[in-house]
């Protein structure tokens, strides 16, 4: 095991409950595993209730119900009610697809605190293309209903090369819909997004222009709307402090009950991620191999090991290091000190080339057929 043994383990604060991989949409940047069709089994209502209770007892307080599309679970309101009774702050992370006014009211009565609605673009045509499903008008209606019923609302828009030119219209849409928070999430290139990277990554110029527009807007709406801006790390020279440090804050439970230190961690070899069907959250968090694997910094190699910034970014994202360099102990290639940093430059050049030559390669949409083929 790579993790250090005499490390003080902090309790989880954030529980991400991925209730299901089922989703009526097909976003080509979806953060679910590419081979999600291999994991069709879902935890029962009773299992989820036990998971919520055990994690809450350890100190988790923020709870995200996500997926896939969590609205496809029939027991959502029951789980929300259970979570409220335990004192969680419950966030529903939804595409809005399948939401009705009755459901919004029912969830509110059950104790749901917040709804995050994602929209793919500012126009119907592009939204429906990216989502792979006609959903634009419905999503806007859902956003209005969320506000009508007194929830705080985060509007989430994933940004990539197909919609980045719509930045001004996206901002106007957020205002019109009455969003309290706007999450501008530059695509993170894992899984589906990694496969589609040549087609999704904006050029540096596009990104800088969009960022300047978003920045000006942020000042304009200060006090009314908050902006959560997820940076595109390929254009940075230091990696993100992934998960705030491995096994320090975040606990993700996948639909099949697998407990993950990060929702991408399933891809890492030899982690033997535990399953909540077999052990308690407390044992998983404190004792499992997976959650101790990258705790602390004993596992690091150079250049991270002797780097004076290692407490800031913990060497970056383990999944990104593995995905790009094939070595999960390596520095995140986003870091300019990484010997693999050229991989980032090459990825940027390749995407740029694809943008300038009007690449004819099609986007690979996230659906069961593609998942089965790629698994």
């Amino acid at each position, binding site marked *: 095991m790579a993790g250090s043994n005499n490390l003080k383990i902090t309790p989880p604060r954030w529980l991400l409950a991925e209730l299901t991989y089922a989703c009526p949409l097909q976003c080509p940047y979806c953060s679910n595993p590419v081979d999600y069709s291999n994991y069709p089994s879902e935890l029962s209502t009773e299992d989820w209730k036990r998971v919520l209770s055990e994690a809450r007892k350890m100190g988790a*307080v923020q709870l995200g119900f996500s997926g896939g599309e969590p609205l496809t679970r029939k027991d959502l309101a029951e789980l929300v009610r259970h979570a409220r009774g335990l004192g969680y*702050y419950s966030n529903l992370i939804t595409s809005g697809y399948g939401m009705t006014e009755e459901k919004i009211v029912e969830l509110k009565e059950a104790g749901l605190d*917040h709804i*995050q609605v994602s929209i793919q673009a500012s126009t119907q045509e592009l939204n429906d293309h990216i989502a792979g499903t006609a959903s634009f008008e419905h999503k806007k209606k859902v956003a209005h209903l969320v506000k009508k019923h*007194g929830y*705080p609302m985060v509007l989430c828009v994933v940004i990539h090369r197909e919609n980045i030119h719509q930045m001004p219209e996206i901002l106007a849409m957020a205002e019109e819909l009455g969003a309290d928070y706007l999450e501008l999430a530059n695509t993170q290139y894992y899984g589906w997004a990694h496969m589609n990277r040549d087609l999704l990554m904006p050029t540096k110029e596009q990104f800088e222009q969009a960022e300047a527009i978003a920045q000006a807007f942020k000042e304009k709406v200060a006090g009314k709307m*908050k902006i959560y801006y997820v940076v595109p790390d390929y254009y940075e020279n230091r990696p993100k402090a992934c998960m705030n440090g491995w096994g320090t804050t975040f606990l993700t439970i996948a639909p099949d009950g697998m407990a993950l230190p990060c929702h991408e961690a399933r891809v890492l070899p030899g982690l033997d991620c535990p399953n909540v069907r077999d052990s308690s959250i407390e044992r998983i968090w404190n004792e499992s191999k997976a959650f101790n694997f990258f705790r602390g910094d004993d596992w690091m190699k150079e250049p991270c090991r002797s780097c004076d910034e290692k407490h800031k970014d913990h060497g970056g994202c383990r999944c990104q290091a593995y995905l790009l360099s094939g070595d999960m102990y390596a520095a995140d290639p986003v870091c300019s000190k990484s010997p693999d940093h050229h991989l980032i430059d090459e990825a940027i050049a390749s995407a740029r080339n694809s943008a300038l030559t009007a690449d004819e390669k099609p986007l690979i949409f996230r659906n069961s057929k593609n998942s089965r083929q790629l698994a």
Partner: protein
Amino acid sequence: MTINPDQPLKFSPLHRLQWEEAQQKFVILYPEGMVELNLSSAEILKLCDGAHNLGQIVSELEQKFAASGLTNDITAFLDIALKNGWIQQP
């Protein structure tokens, strides 16, 4: 945006103030985020109940903690709270 001393202060309906047993702290919860509070900040926010204005909060806390001269500290904190959207004025 600064505090109007004549108007009552109210905790935002889009946030939640809650005691966290595991952390032994009051926290403010909001979409995908949390702020940990020290005891005095929590005491101030608990009085933002829609019935107290600035002066009333100050005198109540000065009485409770048998202290005086708290006006500046409390006003400074309430200004931050207002800017962050944790409290509201009509």
